[in-house]
């Protein structure tokens, strides 16, 4: 079971909230202080991407962030509700449509470059980005 779950309307302003929650919960769970910047950035990227997909796809269900803690690892799953076919279309179209950026691709590049354990899955119900980080054995402090 997720220890903490956040759902938010697909608006850019809520991405910051997701970063805030992810880094607070990760710190509490015992993710190394040095890795928290990485957690914050990766969650931000995954959520920004989900927000963009929802907005382009006209999907009005919320973006979902699940934070999970096992004995050894802290996992975050960011889920959008855009079926993978539509996501690919929206991603391409979107990048081309945006004036001068293709940040969707760049966001994924940042995540993959940053996080050692990451898995990106698409599906009919929407896509999911799963990431995890090691927990420090002893309680940090």
């Amino acid at each position, binding site marked *: 079971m997720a220890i903490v779950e956040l759902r938010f309307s697909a608006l850019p*302003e809520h991405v910051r909230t997701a970063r805030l929650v992810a880094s607070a919960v990760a710190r509490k769970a015992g993710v190394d202080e040095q890795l928290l910047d990485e957690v914050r*950035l990766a969650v931000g990227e995954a959520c920004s991407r989900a927000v963009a997909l929802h907005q382009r796809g006209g999907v009005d269900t919320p973006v979902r962030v699940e934070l999970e803690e096992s004995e050894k690892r802290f996992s975050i799953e960011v889920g959008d509700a855009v079926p993978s076919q539509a996501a690919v279309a929206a991603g391409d179209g979107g990048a081309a449509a945006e004036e*001068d*950026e293709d940040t969707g691709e760049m966001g994924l*590049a940042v995540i993959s470059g940053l996080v050692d354990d990451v898995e990106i899955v698409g599906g009919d119900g929407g896509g999911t980005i799963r990431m995890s980080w090691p927990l420090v054995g002893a309680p940090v402090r």
Partner: protein
Amino acid sequence: MDLSLSTRTVGDRTVVEVGGEIDVYTAPKLRECLVELVNEGNYHLVVDMEGVDFLDSTGLGVLVGGLKRVRAHEGSLRLVCNQERILKIFRITGLTKVFPIHASVDEAASATD
């Protein structure tokens, strides 16, 4: 935590000092600022990132957009950044090869390569 922008002139360069968080929510303000500067005829920009606490790919996209714009006028866009965690993001995305990155505004303002 919000985004702050302030602009000044150093020699023939326009320096944009950025502070706070550049993300999917605030990046549009930075884009607006850069677009406006170019529209007003400022083609040699220095973006000072020393006060930036957070930068994501949306922010990178805006910087790349700014670079394309000034290049269309044979201009330049240089960055000032000494923060390892910000530099890391440029490195991961290969953008250290795209942007000249300097250690100080003075260095950036006098660079010509």
